[in-house]
């Protein structure tokens, strides 16, 4: 008799989702789906609003990576005004963006995933969380809290507020950097580097324990897509170009202008989730599967662009001969990116013009269409607006980082379910692994739209007519 296992709500991920696993008569997994069930419709509700409100409004898409939305949105507005913003303003935006990536990656790694890594995938679900970690391993919990705090404090010291700061505006930023602010931020960096190096140390030493997870956690060939910097290193602010590599690490497309995204990215809809499925048009759907985010970026770039991160990067790339394919290594890549962000921030803060008062360009709109692209913590983020002659938004399209990974996350869930879930003898730890692979991708479901169906974990035994014959609760 066919069974459907429902994991709902998924926990320790950012936003709400659920997973259904379809199990055949023999207890084997036949199929699995990752559903997202909420829409707020920013693409529509922004219509009629003045374009200069967009950064503040669009930041509210997501409380975890509001700064990424600020970046992409403000860049789309710069394009509407047709201005090139003063370089010090761009550098200040970059610093805030790096700070946010630190906090978002720290949240994903420490607060959400490290309980699985340190307490174990099969640990007691009652304590398998950041609070349990505070008791069992207070040093690591504290490191995580502090690292996230550094990121948030830097965002706050620049923008006056940790979440949804109003400082990033069309044309630049609305206040220059003071000496005190600069010195305050610089003073946080060394301790941040200590924490992340310590973390990379224990993470790498522990990898051996997770050999089986590494083997099946979304480990399959796909393409990888993302922005690289002007020197083909890591560039989160998105002023280089877009690159796509295949699973062997060969470049499929390079020097692509991200503003032409509609030429090569399509979006498909499936009836069972509110999250759309972007795909690479030349290969069609679903063959045009690709991944974005930390793992993708480290597979794309020639180097990171800062000394310590480059050492780690060289070691990372020896994991596999072509691209690194296991999605478990999103965690690893995330840690290396945190290190890069800290080093890069320091470089930017020492820039000779960083205290300049020229941080904003003013103009009325000069174009009726604008596209802004940035690398969010989770991958490439695209904001695309059209305005009328009064500067009011008449149309918007957003491609959100988590969306790009939708095909890959669904495939990963199926891969892990097939390996670990036994429909005849269900155990909690099996299901936690299915959730853990989703955590590796660090999806941001607030960003995507987001799901709500928060019912307990139930396992239904369904008859041929769909009637529920038996039910099991976690």
């Amino acid at each position, binding site marked *: 008799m066919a069974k459907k296992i429902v994991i709902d709500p998924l926990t320790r991920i950012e936003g709400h989702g659920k997973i259904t696993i379809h199990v055949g008569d023999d207890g084997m997994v036949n199929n699995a789906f990752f559903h997202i069930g909420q829409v707020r419709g920013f693409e529509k509700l922004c219509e009629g609003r003045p374009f200069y409100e967009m950064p503040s409004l669009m930041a509210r898409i997501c409380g975890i990576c509001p700064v990424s939305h600020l970046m992409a949105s403000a860049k789309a507005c710069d394009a509407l005004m047709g201005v090139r913003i003063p370089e010090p303003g761009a550098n200040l935006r970059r610093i805030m963006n790096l700070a946010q990536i630190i906090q978002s990656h720290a949240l994903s790694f420490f607060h959400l995933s490290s309980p699985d890594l340190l307490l174990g995938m099969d640990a007691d679900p009652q304590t398998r969380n950041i609070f349990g970690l505070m008791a069992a391993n207070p040093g690591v919990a504290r490191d995580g809290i502090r690292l996230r*705090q550094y990121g948030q404090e830097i965002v706050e010291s620049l923008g006056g507020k940790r979440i949804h700061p109003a400082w990033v505006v069309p044309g630049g930023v609305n206040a220059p950097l003071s000496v005190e602010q600069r010195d305050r931020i610089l003073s946080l960096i060394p301790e941040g580097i200590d924490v992340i190096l310590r973390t990379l140390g224990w993470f790498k030493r522990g990898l051996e324990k997770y050999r089986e997870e590494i083997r099946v956690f979304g480990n399959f060939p796909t393409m990888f897509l993302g922005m690289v910097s002007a020197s083909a290193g890591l560039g989160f602010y998105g002023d280089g170009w877009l690159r796509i590599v295949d699973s062997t690490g060969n470049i499929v497309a390079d020097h692509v202008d991200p503003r032409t995204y509609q030429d090569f990215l399509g979006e498909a*809809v499936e009836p069972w989730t509110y999250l759309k499925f972007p795909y690479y048009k030349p290969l069609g*759907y679903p063959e045009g599967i690709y991944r974005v985010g930390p793992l993708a970026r480290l597979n794309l770039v020639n180097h990171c662009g800062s000394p310590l991160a480059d050492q780690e990067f060289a070691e990372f790339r020896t994991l596999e001969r072509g691209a690194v394919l296991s999605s478990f290594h999103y965690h690893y890549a995330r840690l290396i990116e945190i290190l890069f962000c800290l080093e890069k921030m320091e470089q930017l803060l020492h820039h000779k013009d960083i205290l300049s008062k020229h941080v904003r360009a003013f103009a009325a709109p000069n174009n009726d269409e604008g596209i802004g692209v940035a690398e969010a913590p989770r991958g490439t983020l695209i904001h695309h607006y059209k305005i009328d002659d009064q500067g009011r938004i008449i149309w918007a399209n957003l491609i959100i980082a988590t969306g790009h990974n939708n095909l890959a996350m669904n495939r990963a869930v199926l891969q892990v379910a097939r390996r670990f879930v036994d429909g005849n003898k269900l155990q909690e730890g099996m299901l936690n692994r299915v959730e853990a692979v989703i955590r590796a991708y660090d999806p941001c479901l607030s960003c995507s739209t987001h799901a*709500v169906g928060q019912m307990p974990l139930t396992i239904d035994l369904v008859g041929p007519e769909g009637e529920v014959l038996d039910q099991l609760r976690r």
Partner: protein
Amino acid sequence: MSKVRLATVWLDGCSGCHMSLLDMDERLVEIADKVEIVYSPLVDNKEFPQEVDITLVEGAIGNVEDEEKIKMIRQRTKTLVSLGDCAVTGNVPSMRNTCGAKAVLERVYLENVTLQPQIPSESVPALRSRVCPVREVVKVDVFVPGCPPSADTIHALLVGLLSGSVPDISLLSRFGA
């Protein structure tokens, strides 16, 4: 003394209010000492338990499941807190009320699409025609405005509630802050 049973939920919001909760940073450790987190996106319990002392609600009521869920939560919670502007007023999610859910769905799933345009309807909850704040569906005991309320505000709120009183947070937070 038994620990206070605390729950946190997110409905139609952006998770920013939950992030602001985490922004208490090391004060989290001290709060975690005094409470038992019985349900939250940050822990793995899948079922909202009975007899919860305090529930912090982020987000507005946007779809039919939000509505069912908040009614169940109300029954099981002593002190229900609307945390943040979305829960208090509807805020950004309720901006779609001017055009309606249908127009939103059509734009996202029929127009801005390359392949298989269709409005998802299997295994996903239907949107309500109108987004509304929590208090339109159930009685709310404490309102905390802010988008999001700052970590200091949330800290003051929790310290007060844990000592058995409802603190005056009107000087700490305001709408949109």
